[in-house]
């Protein structure tokens, strides 16, 4: 586990080793720590705007001693799995634009209003809590549901943002978005007894129904 202080120090040392100014989006546990939902995380999940930026970041962390590890162990066989780097207990999961079956869309980038700048080189934008839930749905590891629960319990969720984003994801070619999100939220509602409005699930599964009809037509 990595605490807030350790994370700050780590990001500062990475920033000092970066050769170019880059902008990165923090999703998952890291974003939750910056937003005050958590005080420690297992991994630092980051989304880059381009492969080139990821390479620059990768160089910086490997110079700190981080070693690449197999993403299969954590994510299984999933598309757009991240590049993973580990040193002792700390782990970086580095995505480029796509996080498994979701795209870190332009709207998500705009919603990331909180900015943390490390030295002159590392601009870290913190994903909006709504988008963190979506990303948690994308990665869907065991701890992700607990994290989503924490967010839903501690902040007011505007479900329209989540539904609109699911629509956006479908328009961007991520056909599974509504289905995955619906299942994820249904799990949270039934297994974890979270207060997720029925209409939200209804709207999501209606979208899935529509998609299925359109497919049949084709």
């Amino acid at each position, binding site marked *: 586990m990595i605490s807030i202080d350790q994370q700050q120090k780590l990001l500062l040392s990475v*920033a000092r080793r970066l050769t170019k100014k880059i902008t990165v989006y923090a999703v998952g546990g890291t974003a939750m720590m910056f937003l*005050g939902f958590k*005080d420690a995380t297992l991994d630092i999940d980051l989304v880059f705007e381009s492969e080139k930026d990821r390479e620059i970041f990768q160089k910086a962390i490997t110079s700190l001693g981080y070693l690449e590890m197999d993403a299969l162990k954590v994510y299984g066989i999933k598309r757009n799995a991240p590049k993973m780097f580990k040193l002792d207990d700390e782990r970086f999961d580095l995505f480029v634009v796509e996080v498994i079956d979701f795209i870190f869309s332009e709207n998500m980038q705009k919603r990331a209003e909180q*900015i943390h700048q490390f*030295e002159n080189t590392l601009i870290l934008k913190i994903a909006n809590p709504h988008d963190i839930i979506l990303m948690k749905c994308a990665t869907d590891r065991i701890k992700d549901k607990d994290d989503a629960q924490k967010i839903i319990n501690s902040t007011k969720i505007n479900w329209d943002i989540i539904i609109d984003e699911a629509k956006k994801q479908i328009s961007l070619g991520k056909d599974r978005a509504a289905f995955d999100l619906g299942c994820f939220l249904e799990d949270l509602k039934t297994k974890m007894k979270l207060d997720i409005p029925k209409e939200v699930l209804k709207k999501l599964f209606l979208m899935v129904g529509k998609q299925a009809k359109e497919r049949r037509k084709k």
Partner: protein
Amino acid sequence: MDKIELLQKLTGIQTIESVMDLLRVDRRMAIYYLHRLRKEGYVKTKRQSNNRRVYTISVDNKLGGKSYYEIINRYSPIKVSTPSVYRIYGKEPSLEEAIIHAIKTKSLRTILASLALFKRINNWTELYRLAKENQIARQVGALYDLAHRIMKIRRMSKTFRNNALPQKKDKFKYIIERLKSKDFMIIEKTWRVYLPFNEMDLEEYQ
């Protein structure tokens, strides 16, 4: 009570009484909870004129770093609240950067407050470099001239002025979309930049 839950309930400005109310606990427990959060670095304490303690509880206190708004508020008589989080770690943000950031926010009050920073600018080369990088050199020049009208400030370097002044072909630019000045048209013409302020807006500086 879980630390994160405690933090979420108490985030904001609190007194011991408000903590007691929010957590529905007695004074002794309220002090204990505040102590726990302070130990983790989430609490900043100030005293009012009547010696009462006011606690600012926030994740930002724990995260540390500096924000441009802190710099503006330190040097400007006009104070601004923090509309968005932009914190900087590992270096001390400069006044030059704060001016550029203020202009980029396109917020009337932030830009107004940042005018006071011109009093303390001495690295004009850095200011020009940043302004040029962000394509707002003319805006900086126009705001400098405006600040010069209302307060005593250091002279702008000739290099800055010569390099930043517009050419005849340059079109007028807005600092804040669709806001023009009725009282500072000469400055606007000189820099080919519309200023978002009138004389009345600057009263707080006089």
